[in-house]
């Protein structure tokens, strides 16, 4: 199973400790990695098809990025070999611009049928990875819902978009969708682990799908309530801003 990590801070943060830890803990995911972050409001992504961890060493570029990235929001993804062709060629970490924001999207899980989805909007993500279709689907829904009802909050628009997504394309979803200010995290089949840490530059909130977290600290879990379609969390800076069922 792939894994994802998000780091959210009040002010620009360099994840030199937590990104390598994530790579080490996610080392069973052997099929590549990606890191997304923001610079001057623009989402940027660095990806690789190489293993994130080999021979007791975190991938050199991954380590360097961990020392250099300076962003309020950082999202990382490590890929697994379990889902065959879906994962072979491309990362599951994307950037796209819509609703006046540059967004980073990272997804883990298996969804059948969504690779058939064809977006009516531009841009269409070039990659054939099904996660790209999920992002396009969410983008299309969000644009439509925000235009239809400007009184709806962004989280309400995303919530109804996810309901539609899960209804149209049932499957296992766990994703981060982040702009330069907030992270939306949704999951319907695993748990998210959270840790709030005090750092020299202020506090950070870590969110991951890794079952054991990144450290022996007191991580706390949020998982979907039985009977719900999933759990959605909104993170702003080092704070959990909102938690709700979908």
């Amino acid at each position, binding site marked *: 199973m792939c894994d994802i990590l998000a780091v959210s801070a009040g002010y620009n943060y360099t994840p030199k400790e937590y990104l390598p830890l994530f790579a080490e803990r996610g080392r069973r995911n052997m099929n590549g990695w990606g890191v997304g972050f923001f610079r001057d*409001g623009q989402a940027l992504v660095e990806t690789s098809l190489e293993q994130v961890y080999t021979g007791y060493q975190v991938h050199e570029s991954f380590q360097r990025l961990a020392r250099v990235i300076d962003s309020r929001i950082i999202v990382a993804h490590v890929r697994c070999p379990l889902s065959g062709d879906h994962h072979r060629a491309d990362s599951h970490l994307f950037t796209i611009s819509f609703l006046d924001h540059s967004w980073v999207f990272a997804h883990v899980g298996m969804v059948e049928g969504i690779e058939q989805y064809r977006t009516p909007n531009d841009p269409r993500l070039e990659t054939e990875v099904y996660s790209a279709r999920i992002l396009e689907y969410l983008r299309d829904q969000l644009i439509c819902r925000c235009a239809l009802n400007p*009184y*709806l909050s962004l989280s*309400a628009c995303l919530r109804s978009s996810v309901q539609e997504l899960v209804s149209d394309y049932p499957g296992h979803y766990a994703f981060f969708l982040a702009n330069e*200010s907030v992270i939306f995290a949704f999951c319907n089949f695993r748990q998210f682990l959270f840790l709030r840490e005090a750092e020299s530059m202020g506090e950070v909130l870590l969110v991951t799908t890794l079952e054991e977290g990144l450290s022996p600290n007191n991580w*706390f879990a949020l998982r979907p309530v039985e009977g719900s379609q999933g759990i959605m969390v909104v993170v*702003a800076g080092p704070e*959990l*801003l*909102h938690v709700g069922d979908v």
Partner: protein
Amino acid sequence: MCDLFAVSAATNYSAPKALPLFASRASKNMDGWGIGYFRKARAVVERSAQRVYSPGQLHDSYQRLARVVNSKIIISHVRFRTSGPVDECHAHPFILNFCGSDWLFAHNGNAPAIENYRTHAEVVAGAASDSARAFEYLRDQMVSLWQGAATPSALFDFVCQGTGRMIEEYPGDYNYLLSNGLVIFAFTNHRQFMLLKGSRKLEAALLLTTLEEGLSDENWLRMAKASSGRGLMLAIAGTDVVVVRSL
């Protein structure tokens, strides 16, 4: 009636157009003004007990501050006194530190019942108004919820619960902006918030004001409590209203 104005953006922003316009449109408020913002994690406030606008002329300091203040979140208040004396201490925004952050608070409304509230924690220095007591009450509620939570819980819920208790225990007209530098919580139970994003005439950040006609002839969105509700709470991060809840 006092008036409120806020700018929220993803990156540091100035509001040299919108701030003066707000002051001039709110010019009937003659009992002081304040501009609050964040420098890194610290809340900073510039306040005055003087009129923000005399016929044809904006207060010199306000005008200069409008050009210079540079922050992801800027909150301004112009005062029409309904509680407490007219002096600098009673001009908003106020600052308190709690739950690990500096917080700015600016309020308009009329809630005489809460003037009797006495906190056991730090008070808003020198202020004897309903607004100061409301801020202290909210702080006390949020700290209590924060410390009582078994696991870290959602900040939005704390603010909503604290506000719900406040309007139940101390009924009144509340319209406030509360910010930790990352999010603005905007609550109203008696007026409206007018919101505009991506203005072509003013700044393109998210602009919010209590002035019912907004600050330009663009499509300002009016958000107010439902007639059957107790109030409306918004959470604003960057240029978006991220969460809305009717209390």
